[in-house]
């Protein structure tokens, strides 16, 4: 019985290590407009979109590192947002979404070949995604420029303006006159949004409010709106970032996977056995692998890193989010089990922007987009599907049996092990484009084995 339990536990006890890019800078889809001469670049960002029908809750977290008084951001939004449609989110929620959906490492331990086949696995998980947030500037009204302040309010540490504009030059002038420093070419980028009838969400940090809050970093901004447009503006963000930027989008839907409509999506290579030494530098491995895949696929596509029903995970990189945390991530369609508590305690818990419906399904899609002006000319458009197919980025480490082996089966095991390790090294080399010699050295593949390897394998990989 205990053997059975041990056997079963090997499947359920998974030790997962996750590291995303070693410095996953997070940034907004809009551009930063600084008041000072600070050079501001956004290299990466995290966005969560919870959407059911036309109802949308958008959460944006960024990695702003500069002086808070210099921070300002402009985001095109489909409708005029009132104060109660904007919230400040909990930065931990974004970390939870990231951790839950992150690519994962699974470990298995070979059993003693001389004993009965048993596999043990252990898991661990780390995440180093760091969240910080935005800051802002001033605004005054000048109708002669065709700019109208539709709404003006303060939420958390942010002063927010919702602007509508008639001409991009007017908006640019208005922003400049009001102390925002715009990147070059801003007017040209703003015009298409104005002509599509979009409004502009302008946020800066209210330093007095910020001083009151405990958190060091800026918290994510959340906005709720109804719109048939299911898109994420990325074009503005291209102006003040050098080269390519990373964007992680967590799409939450009650139905199934959310797809990118106007770009192709490829699945990140997954379920591959790689050398065990990768355990200590999984982050580096993942970065190299992502980069290699990105180049191989021609740069202009998104990668699917995770697609899963959020009620479970197997193996889990992090515990599934609680209903409370899901609401924090903007999921508004969950059944609300304790409505009374929500009413009496509304200061502490997020009641959701829309009334809850009878649906407890949440399906998460994690897309990783590395974009630049030349490879992603258009903003991202999405569509909800009923695709329930699950996918995860999962990499397998198989540790050899280290104990004493005195039997005939051990010989066979050692031979298989050598073959397996060689195969893992080849897979790793093709995934990451790392040097085969280095991999062999680090993976400690025995001399014995190298004798069996044709000499050309040292320079050419399969």
């Amino acid at each position, binding site marked *: 019985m205990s053997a059975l339990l041990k056997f079963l536990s090997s499947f359920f006890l998974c030790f997962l290590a996750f590291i995303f890019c070693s410095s996953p800078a997070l940034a907004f889809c809009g551009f930063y407009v600084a008041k000072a001469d600070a050079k501001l670049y956004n290299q990466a960002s995290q966005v969560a979109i919870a959407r059911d029908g036309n109802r949308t809750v958008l959460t944006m977290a960024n990695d702003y590192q500069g002086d808070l008084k210099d921070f300002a951001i402009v985001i095109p939004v489909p409708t005029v947002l009132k104060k109660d449609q904007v919230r400040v989110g909990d930065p931990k929620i974004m970390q939870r979404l990231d951790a839950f959906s992150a690519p994962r490492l699974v470990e298995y331990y070979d059993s003693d070949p001389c004993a009965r086949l048993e596999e043990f696995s252990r898991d661990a998980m780390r995440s180093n995604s760091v969240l910080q947030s935005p800051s802002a500037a001033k605004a005054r009204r000048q109708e002669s420029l065709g700019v109208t302040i539709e709404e003006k309010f303060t939420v958390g540490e942010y002063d927010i303006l919702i602007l509508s504009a008639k001409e991009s030059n007017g908006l640019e002038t208005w922003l400049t006159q009001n102390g925002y420093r715009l990147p070059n070419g801003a007017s040209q980028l703003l015009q298409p949004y104005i*002509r599509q009838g979009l409004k502009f969400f302008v946020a800066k940090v209210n330093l007095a409010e910020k001083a009151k809050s405990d958190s060091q970093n800026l918290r994510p901004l959340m906005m709720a709106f109804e719109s048939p447009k299911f898109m994420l503006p990325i074009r503005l963000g291209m102006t003040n970032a050098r080269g390519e930027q990373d964007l992680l989008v967590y799409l939450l839907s009650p139905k199934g996977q959310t*797809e990118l*409509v*106007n*770009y192709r999506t490829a699945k990140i290579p997954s379920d591959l056995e790689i050398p065990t030494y990768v355990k200590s530098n999984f982050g580096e491995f993942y970065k190299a692998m992502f980069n290699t895949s990105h180049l191989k696929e021609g740069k202009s596509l998104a990668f699917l890193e995770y697609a899963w029903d959020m009620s479970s995970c197997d193996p889990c990189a992090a515990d599934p989010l609680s209903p409370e945390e899901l609401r924090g991530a903007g999921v508004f369609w969950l059944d609300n089990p304790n409505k009374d508590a929500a009413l009496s305690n509304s200061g502490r818990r997020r009641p959701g922007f829309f009334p809850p419906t009878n649906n407890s399904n949440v399906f998460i899609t994690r897309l990783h987009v590395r974009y630049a002006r*030349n490879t992603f*000319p*258009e903003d991202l458009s999405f569509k909800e*599907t*009923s695709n329930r197919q699950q996918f995860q980025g999962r990499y397998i480490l198989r540790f050899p049996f280290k104990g004493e082996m005195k039997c005939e089966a051990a010989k066979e095991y050692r031979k298989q092990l050598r073959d397996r390790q060689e195969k893992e090294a080849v897979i790793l080399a093709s995934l990451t484009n790392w040097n085969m010699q280095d991999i062999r050295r680090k993976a400690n593949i025995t001399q014995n084995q190298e004798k069996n390897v044709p000499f050309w394998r040292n320079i050419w990989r399969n």
Partner: protein
Amino acid sequence: MEQSISGFWGRFDRGRWSPHLTKLTTKLSNADGRIYQILFLSIFLGLGVIERDWSLSWSRVGITLSACGFTQVFFALLYQRFNSQDSAQRFPFSGLLSALVTGLSLCLLLRANSDLTMIFAAFTAIASKFIFRIRQKHWFNPANFGIAIALLFGSAWISPGQWGHDLWLMVVFASLGFAVLGKVGRWDTSLAFFASYAALEGIRNFYLGWETDVLLHRLSSGSLLLFALFMITDPRSTPNARLGRIFWAILVGIISFIFQNYLFISAAPFWALFVCAPLSVVFDRLFVGSRFGWLSKRPFAQFSLT
């Protein structure tokens, strides 16, 4: 197209293989567009699975194709029974080719969680040919109809981004597309649709102030090209007269543009075709006397793409 094929094979006629080759030549040049269609669609399906890592199971492809085939045979027999004037005809095997084309189109476009949805779509697609028909013409493109019904009533979806924007893929689509269009004489429909849609997108792009590469990106989608070359060109559900076809295709282009940019419907051309398809019957009435109606004198190359 036909000439070039017989010319090519004709060179071998003098050899000792000539009797066999002549047979093959005749078969190839007489083969209706559907043979090419089936070949090309199979190539696309292979490309999708190998080059575009679609998660498509071969068993589902088999089930979909069989469902199309069985529905075709069932309705053909039923139709024959109730139409005494058709009873002299042989068992309509040729309909099976159309069913195969429709089935392949479903596999290329439609994605579903279960085989049952695919069977439902296959049944609806083929049944629509027999239910919505007037004078040997279909109101709807069968695959288009089947997919639309599956999307509306089943748990299915289509992925407009599944092909991406690679240039080599555009070249493959365009060359195979025009090969088959030349055979069926429907390039006018393709061009009229694409030109009207591209013109409207171009005007909008200019008005909004986007750069040219945005427009190129919007127009170079593999799905759009495949639609323009293969789906909208089905002779059985497009107007007979060339002028009628051109006006009709322009209408599909305009509606696609509106669906795409003002109603924010993804896969807009697909839905535009669904809406416009029954109008081809009206266009046939309007343009019936047109001198471009030459194709109606020929037996229909029963060529339903997608």
